[in-house]
């Protein structure tokens, strides 16, 4: 198979790829110049809608459609937030773009702001990316110096300011309304929707929140056209009117027990097998694979037998996973204990639950307590049923929480227990031969370091 020629990552190996000079030498900002000279915001919105671009941040909502939810003829201001709070375990594609090609992100962001008639954009970046922070700030400064930002950009009459805003190590800020609350200076508790941000968002004004990679895709769609974008990926199923398709290139993050971990660009729909073997150089140490996370830990688990799963917006769902998520594939080899995996997953979500909704706050904390007890050799088979009960009852899908964090906490539980139950039962019986069948209430263990 010939490798896909990278587009989003085309610049990253050039020396000084993060500078305006190098970006412009490669044709950068030509799309923005074309947009400002010859297109209306409406034209850009229609073009992005026609491209079928779906948000790259995790939920996969069609970007152009999201933009059209903004009220028509609104007197303003309309705000734009760029979500660079990438924190999903296993995910680092936004960091690649911001460190090695920040101008591509900014070009897409400026075009997106023009399309949505926003005159202020907040670039919300997680605290853990100091290099990306410095490079994006430098790129923004370069843009102001070159007349690509500020008042009357390139003489078009369109004005835009971009401000960087820094997070403080909280996963929940990646949820779009949590992000909005965080910018407003409050605790990042997600809001009840509706109203959706497009109607009432940041500072109670219409707001669009898009992901970094989505912005980069917007720049490429304007540079290369809708036909180019739609020629890549998996077309919509004509039998299913609700399928929006999976068009375009995607940045896949590959890590874990893999020979060549990294960020790779491939058409949407590449299989886990192809990603591991053609890009990742296979499993480390010649071992066998056992399982993989398909798109960040929130998406659940695929068994090694399910690695034919295509990584498009519909693929992982057909294998019982939550979805494509951030397309971050974490591969686990045969030495990994599912007890250990689940404990790590529960630890993450117990730490990152924002505490607003009781089912999530209590569900994630108790699932960690149960996993702690199982890991310590005091587990019972009944605990697996309790964990499943938590998994089936927390989240947006059962309808018990405001945001999807709890669904992300639930999916690893549900997938690991339903796909690896014999292994988990064997571990519990082996490590707790006296008490594995106990069903009466037993005390929880003291926890070390959730917070």
């Amino acid at each position, binding site marked *: 198979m010939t490798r896909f020629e990278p587009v989003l990552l085309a610049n990253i190996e050039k020396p000084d790829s993060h500078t305006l000079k190098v970006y412009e030498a490669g044709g950068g900002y030509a799309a923005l110049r074309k947009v400002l000279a010859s297109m209306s915001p409406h034209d850009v919105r229609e073009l992005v809608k026609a491209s079928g671009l779906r948000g790259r941040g995790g939920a996969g909502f069609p970007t152009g459609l999201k933009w059209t939810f903004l009220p028509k003829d609104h007197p303003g201001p309309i705000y734009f937030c760029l979500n660079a709070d990438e*924190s999903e375990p296993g*995910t680092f594609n936004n960091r690649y773009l911001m460190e090695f090609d920040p101008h591509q992100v900014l070009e897409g962001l400026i075009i997106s702001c023009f399309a949505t008639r926003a005159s202020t954009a907040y670039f919300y970046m997680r605290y853990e990316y100091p290099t990306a922070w410095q490079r994006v700030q430098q790129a923004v400064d370069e843009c102001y110096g070159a007349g690509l930002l500020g008042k009357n950009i390139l003489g078009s009459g369109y004005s835009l300011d971009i401000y960087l805003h820094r997070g403080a190590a909280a996963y929940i800020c990646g949820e779009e309304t949590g992000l909005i609350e965080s910018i407003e200076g409050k605790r990042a508790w997600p809001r009840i929707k509706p109203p959706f941000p497009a109607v009432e968002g940041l500072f109670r004004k219409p707001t669009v929140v898009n992901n970094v990679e989505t912005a980069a895709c917007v720049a490429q769609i304007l540079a290369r056209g809708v036909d180019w974008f739609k020629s890549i990926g998996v077309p919509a199923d004509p039998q299913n009117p609700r399928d929006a398709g999976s068009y375009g290139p995607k940045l896949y993050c590959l*890590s*874990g027990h893999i020979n060549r971990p990294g960020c790779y660009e491939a058409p949407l729909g590449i299989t886990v097998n192809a990603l591991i073997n053609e890009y990742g150089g296979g499993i480390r140490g010649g071992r066998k694979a056992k399982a993989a*996370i398909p798109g960040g830990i929130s998406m659940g688990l695929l068994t090694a037998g399910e690695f034919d799963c295509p990584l498009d917006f519909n693929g992982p769902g057909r294998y019982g996973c939550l979805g494509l998520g951030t397309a971050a594939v974490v591969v686990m080899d045969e030495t990994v204990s599912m007890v250990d995996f689940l404990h790590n997953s529960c630890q993450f979500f117990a730490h990152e639950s924002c505490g607003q909704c009781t089912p999530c706050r209590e569900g994630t904390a108790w699932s960690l307590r149960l996993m702690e007890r199982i890991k310590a050799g005091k587990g019972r088979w009944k605990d697996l049923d309790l964990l499943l009960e938590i998994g089936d009852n927390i989240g947006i899908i059962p309808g018990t929480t405001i945001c999807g964090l709890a669904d992300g906490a639930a999916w690893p539980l549900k997938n690991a227990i339903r796909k690896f139950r014999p292994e988990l039962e064997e571990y519990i019986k082996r490590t707790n031969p006296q008490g594995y069948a106990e069903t009466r209430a037993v005390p929880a263990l003291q926890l070390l370091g959730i917070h």
Partner: protein
Amino acid sequence: MSATTERVLTDEMVAEIQSLLPRYPSKQAVTLPALHLVNERLRHVPLQAVVEIAGILDLAPADVQDTLSFYGFFKQDQPHGKVRAWVCRSISCHLLGADEVLAHLSRRLGVKPGETTADGRITLEYAECLGACEYAPCMLAGTTLHRCLDTQKADQFVDQLR
């Protein structure tokens, strides 16, 4: 709060916080940038600083404290060390030995995660995914990412700080 009401924010810090106000239509939105600004200078945000930030932003101190305490990022009782070292413990790093690295550093430095060495040089922390999974296990110390760690590399990192 301590009995002293001596100001902890310098005139420069106040001016820097005020310079951010035009970026947002609400003063409260400057809360997080102000906390970062103070934390970078003082390596913690004591309660007196919270009171002073609230004064600049026309907020009740409780509003600022509410936001601050949500993040669990800003220390309040005493400054963190010269270097704050975040060892990632999320899944990709965990699979490749992050626990051993964190336990090793903890033993070597004689502190638990969240604590600062007696000489004030290092604060050891665990982190959830640092977004550098291709370099697992990794650690962010100050603004430097330490890649593909093992106990030897962790030792070298400590040696260089001494």
